[in-house]
């Protein structure tokens, strides 16, 4: 099975002599020093394929947009985003990620642009296994590769859509190639230079399998800044399905519902939050406000008193809310 994959390099004396005679005498000992040094993750995968990973996956239906000029950024992003359900093409993304003077696209802008279409951007941990896990879960992964050699960099975005353990190859949508198969070793070698930078852009009702609660919440908050409310609401709901105990997830869901003037939904999300986190001043404060706006002032005052009594960084905000609720009761 390891044939065509990565058999460990074994050096005989002759090969060594040849190597040292060649002009790359300085670089090659490093290369030949072993995969573990140069391609640690590929080597680790070869030795120990994670039990939760399939042998072979390919997302055939991921679309392909051949890149124009230097615009692999817009092309790769469109590939991932269209598969995520966004109605967008590479040309729409040029003025959202492309820098004409640099002739390329920055990583931060790749993450930022997807949010404007109501997708949530997630930067993967720098792990080969995580990349494969996302692909296996049905999400194409955008990677940043460097096809140059020191000191020249040729940064390039491509989208990983499949892998095969037996052949030891990954399948990419890359540049002008719809289906580029490259060995894991080559992928890691080129990908390593970007510190294993990889991202996905998923529809708001999905949470990437490799996401972690705190970071995912930040990713959703980042999306909420620029996307429409319906997308944000779906994202918070999905977050709560995955992590039902997330306090800020519930507060986020309630805030979007509140902004949409869906007060009953805001109330039920906050009640759940207060039940799970009785000492959250934010949840108490916001629930009090929502109830007050539904003219349930008595209940609102009890809750806001509890919020104020908790003190902490939100004490001032809670006091302000209490004043407002009281003013309302004073009115005839």
């Amino acid at each position, binding site marked *: 099975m390891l044939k065509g994959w990565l*058999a460990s*390099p074994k050096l005989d004396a002759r090969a060594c002599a040849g190597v040292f005679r060649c002009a790359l005498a300085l670089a090659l000992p490093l*290369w*030949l020093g072993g995969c573990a040094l140069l391609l640690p993750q590929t080597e680790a995968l070869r030795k120990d394929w994670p039990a939760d990973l399939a042998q072979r996956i390919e997302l055939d239906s991921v679309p392909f947009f051949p890149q124009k*000029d*230097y*615009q*692999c*950024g817009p092309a*790769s992003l469109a590939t991932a985003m269209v598969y995520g359900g966004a109605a967008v093409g590479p040309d729409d993304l040029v*003025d*959202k*990620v492309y*820098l*004409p*003077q*640099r*002739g*390329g*696209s*920055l*990583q*931060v*802008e790749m*993450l*930022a*642009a997807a949010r*404007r279409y109501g997708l949530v951007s997630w930067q993967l941990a720098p792990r080969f296994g995580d990349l494969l896990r996302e692909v296996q879960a049905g999400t194409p992964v955008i990677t*940043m590769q*460097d*096809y*140059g*050699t020191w000191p020249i960099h*040729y*940064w*390039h975005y491509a989208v990983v859509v499949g892998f095969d353990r037996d052949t030891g190859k990954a399948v990419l949508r890359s*540049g*002008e190639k719809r289906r580029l198969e*490259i*060995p894991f070793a*080559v992928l890691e*070698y080129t990908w390593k230079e970007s510190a294993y930078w990889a991202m996905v852009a998923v529809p708001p009702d999905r949470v990437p399998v490799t996401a972690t609660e705190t970071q995912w919440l*930040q990713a959703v*908050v980042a999306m909420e*800044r*620029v996307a429409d409310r319906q997308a944000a609401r779906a994202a918070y709901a999905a977050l709560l399905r995955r992590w039902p105990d997330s*306090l*800020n997830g519930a*507060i986020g869901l309630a*805030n979007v519902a*509140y902004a949409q003037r869906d007060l009953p939904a805001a109330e039920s999300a906050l009640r759940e939050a207060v039940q799970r986190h009785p000492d959250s001043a*934010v949840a108490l*404060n916001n629930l009090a*406000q*929502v109830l*007050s706006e539904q003219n349930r002032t008595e209940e609102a005052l009890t809750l806001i008193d509890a919020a104020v009594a908790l003190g902490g*960084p*939100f004490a001032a*905000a809670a006091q302000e809310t209490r004043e*407002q609720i009281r003013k309302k009761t004073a009115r005839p």
Partner: protein
Amino acid sequence: MKSAAFRALCRFLIASLFAMSFQSAMAGMIGTDQAVAAASTQSERAALINTMSRSDVAGQLQLQGVDPDAAKARVASMTDQEVRSLAGQIDSLPAGASSGSGWAVAIVIVLLVWYFWK
């Protein structure tokens, strides 16, 4: 005309424009971003620095050939942390672009790797 005071005034005006567009107005409700940021207790000074960085980065994007409105919208879709990572760095950060000559190098690498690990 381009005195230091004039430039400072421009910076201030740009910054205040940004500040206005990022304000969220929900009286009585504590915002999600505030709740999330509570752990890091963002000071007003940090908020001002963020606002300044945003106008800085928008200006840099314009220097890279992006038109002003697009630059503003692009910055708006970044998080504070992302903005800080770009401020003053746009020239040196990697920008994915390669095609053409890049592929020649790519082929050489692929051949080398294949040669040694086949």
